[in-house]
C-alpha cells in the first residue's frame, strides 16, 4: 500500500532547502576528512563513497534500504539456533 499524498513538486517545495543543507554538510564533512589526511585506506571512507553512489542511482524507491544494507553485517542463514524448551 502506497499512501503518499504529495506530488514530487510539492515534496521539493517543502524539502529543497533541507536537502541542500544536508548535501552541504556532507561536502564539508568530506573536506574535513581530506584536510586531516591519511584516510585513503580507511574502509569507512569506501563505504561512504559507495553510499553516495547509491544516492545517484536512477529513479527508485529503495535508496534508503540500499544504504542501510550497505552499512550492515551480512546475515548468514543456517546459524545454530537455540532450541525451545518447555
Amino acid at each position, binding site marked *: 500500500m502506497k499512501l503518499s499524498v*504529495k506530488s514530487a513538486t510539492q515534496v521539493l517545495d517543502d524539502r529543497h532547502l533541507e536537502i541542500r543543507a544536508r548535501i552541504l554538510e556532507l561536502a564539508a564533512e568530506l573536506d574535513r576528512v581530506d584536510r586531516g589526511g591519511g584516510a585513503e585506506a580507511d574502509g569507512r571512507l569506501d563505504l561512504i563513497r559507495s553510499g553516495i553512489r547509491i544516492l545517484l542511482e536512477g529513479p527508485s524507491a529503495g535508496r534508503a534500504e540500499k544504504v*542501510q544494507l550497505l552499512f550492515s553485517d551480512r546475515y548468514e542463514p543456517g546459524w545454530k539456533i537455540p532450541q*525451545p524448551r*518447555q
Partner: protein
Amino acid sequence: MSNYIDPHIHMISRVTDDYHRMSLAGCVAISEPAFWAGFDRGSAEGFRDYFHHLVDVEPKRAAQFGIQHFSWLCINAKEAENVSLSRDVIRLIPEYLERPNVLGIGEIGLNKNTANEATIFQEHVDLAMRTNELILVHTPHLRDKHKGTLMILDMFRNDKRVQPDRVCIDHVEEHTIKPALDAGYWVGMTLYPVTKCTPERACDMVEMFGGERMMVNSAGDWGRSDPMAVPEFILAMRRRGHPEALIRKVAHDNPLAFWQKSRRWPGLSPRP
C-alpha cells in the same frame, strides 16, 4: 494536539519535567521496557530493585500528570552476554508478572548477535510461552541490526508456540520492517537521533507500508533522545497532509490494540 501513546520510553532516565511536557502534548500512556542501565549490574538483586522501580515507583510519578505507565520485564540483550546472571534474573521475573501494569516480557533481543545472547533470548521466549505473555523485542543497533533482526525472526519461526500477533519487533528501519510485517508481527519505529529513525523517515515507512500493525516511539533514555519524538512524528504526518485517522492509528490505536492482548490488560483510564 490529539491524544497519543509512547509505547517505548525509559522514564527512569528522564526528569519529571518530561512527564509534564509529554502530558501537555497529549500523552495518555507509555510503556517502559527493562533495559541496560549504562553499566553492567553486578547481581540479580540489582534487577530486583530495578523491577520494583518499574512496577511500583514510576507509575506513581506518571500518574501525577495523567499518564498511565506500563512496563515490560527482562534482562536486556547487552547484559544477556552473562548467561549465569541472566538465568538468575529470569528466575526473578515471575514474581512481578501478576502486577496489572506489566504488559509482558521485554525488551529482549540481540545486541552483538552472539551465541550467548541468542541462548538467553530463547530462554526469555520459553518463559513468555509458559506464562502466556506478550513479547517486546529490541533489535540491534547500526551494522548489527539487519543480521540480528533476521536471526530473531529465525528463532521465532523455529518456536511453533510463538504467535506473531503477540510480539512487537521494535526499532525497525527501512531494511528490517518488511520481513517483520510480512511475518505478521507488530513493529515499532524508534525516533532517535543519529542511530535510528527520524520522524520524516517514519512517515515514509507509513506511506510505503500503510500503517497496519505499525507504531512509533521515542525510546527516550539517558542518551541523546527526545521524549517529545512522537508529537514530532504527528506534526510531520500532518504537514504531509495525512488524515487524522491514520495518524491516530499509528500514534495511539495500534499500540493500544497490541497492549490489549496482554492477559492482565487493565484498560486505559479516562484522563483526569
